[in-house]
């Protein structure tokens, strides 16, 4: 089980490229998906330690994918951090209601995101 792997779900190529490189530089193993449905497949197959999920995704939105993940026992325990440019208070609530464990707005505060990722990965390992 690759519990220290981070699954980054992001359909925007620039942002996906940028975050993948920064997380890799920080020493994390990063795998990517570009839509909600393939994210669910990747979660079931690779059991990542934490998922960074954009909310506005094609095929299956981040909210729908998160809700599906939380109702699937095989992946329900994997923490999901919502990454979104939707920055209103209601958006945070919507993400948390869908089952996200945490919420980060774009532009990303990278150190804060990193410490959240470590927090969830650490909780998985202990």
């Amino acid at each position, binding site marked *: 089980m690759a519990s220290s792997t981070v699954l980054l779900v992001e*359909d*925007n*190529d*620039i*942002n996906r490229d*940028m*975050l993948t*490189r*920064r997380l890799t*530089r920080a020493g994390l193993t990063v795998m990517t998906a570009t839509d909600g449905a393939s994210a669910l497949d990747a979660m079931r197959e690779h059991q990542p330690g934490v998922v960074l999920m954009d909310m*506005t*995704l*094609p095929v299956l939105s981040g909210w729908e994918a998160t809700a599906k993940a939380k109702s699937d026992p095989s992946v329900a325990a994997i923490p999901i951090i919502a990454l979104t*440019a*939707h*920055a*209103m208070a209601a*958006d945070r609530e919507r993400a948390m209601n869908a089952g996200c464990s945490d919420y980060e*707005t*774009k*532009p*990303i505060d*990278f150190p804060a995101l990193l410490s959240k990722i470590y927090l969830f990965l650490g909780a998985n390992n202990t």
Partner: protein
Amino acid sequence: MITARLGLRARLYLASAAILMLFAFNVGTHLWGSYARSESVMAYRIATEGTALVRSIQQGLATEYQRVQVLAALRETNAPIRIAQREQANAELSEISDQLRALGGLSDIETEAAFRDFYKFASTLLDEWVRFYRDYNDNSVPSRLDARLYGDATDSLQALADQQNSVALERSTIIDNTIQLTDRITIIGFVSSITITLILILTLIRTTNASLFRLRVGVERFGAGDLTHRIDENRDSGEIANLAQTFNEMSASLQRAMADLTDARAEAEAANETKSMFLANVSHELRTPLNAIIGYSEMLQDELSDGETLDRDQFHHDLTTIIFSGRQLLTLINDILDLSKIETGKMSVSYEPVNVAGLVVQVCDALSPLLAQNKNQLELDVVGAQNATMRSDAAKIQQILTNLFSNACKFTKNGVIKVTAHIDDAALRLSVQDNGIGMTEEQQSKVFQAFVQADSNTSVNYGGTGLGLAIVSSFCDMLGGSVTLSSAPGEGSRFEVSLPVVQE
């Protein structure tokens, strides 16, 4: 109940009139009773006077009779009477005669015949006696006294007295009956007046109370928030119905005012919602390129401070991404400002003469670098608009064309972009056609909405903000025209703008 259908004033008038009538009836029976009583007193007085007169006349006649009898006997002895004695006798006779007349005054229709009988005998008797006294000292006149006359007079007087008594008795019986009757009527009338008055007052109070209660219930229900409640105006008439009607009119206008307020509030809330949505969208759209700008800049900074060997190509590529995102942000801000002006109604149209062909050529020239970027060819056809001018807003036509042309350049690689302009008496037709990636029907249905692109990677792969076509559509509306789209995936898109011509 009938009083409920009458107005308040009418009810009061009716009750007052009824009470006054009862009162007048009572007064009438009372007066009738009083009249009967005074009649009775009068009859009693007449009866008493009559009896006294009869008695006095009887006595006077008896006294005179005896005296005349005595004098008649004395006359045989030739004893003369003195003048004073004779005058006294005459006075007494005339007094009796007065009493006779007084008795005549007391007689009425029923006793008149008896009185006449008596009067005939009595006056003859008195005349005889007067002659007796007059001729008493004259011996040449023989004394002729009718012995029967006195008896007839006293008999007829007795008959008169009897008749008077019987008439008085009969009358007093009638009067007694009348008094009894009027007393009874007065008592019955009085008791029934009080009863009827009480019933009337109670009815008045009850019906008025019922009317007021309906009003109160109506006002209470309305006050409790049931704005549709109306008082039944047909249950009353007059003032209370007027009051109910006035209340209903007030209720209706209040209800309308409340409905207007509710509508206005809903509108204000909807407008507020739209504004919030707009702000949320703007925030979202600004954050997406900013995420790339800040993310790449921080990453490059990290790479520089880590002292790693720099991959120059990678570095150049990252800087290009930052610049691309920055430019995208600028376009976005400009578009948002335009859109916000359009949505708040602050975008105005300024009409001026527009040389259409020149304008089209100018826009295509300005965008030639964009055309070259994806190695596209331009086919320009402005023959249909050569030398033509129209009144319109040049800046808006320019932006419409710029947005359509740059879209065509972005979504087409190694292709051909056809721009045509054709003007006739009715309309200017501008078309921009490409043979690029095209759109599905679902994408076509959304592209004119603000903040919507064909898909979420469009801005990454092709740039743009998702506002360009919304602005094109709004500008076409403002200029009184329209924009249409025909497209298919992989076969390119064709946008056609039609603007009405105002001939120069």
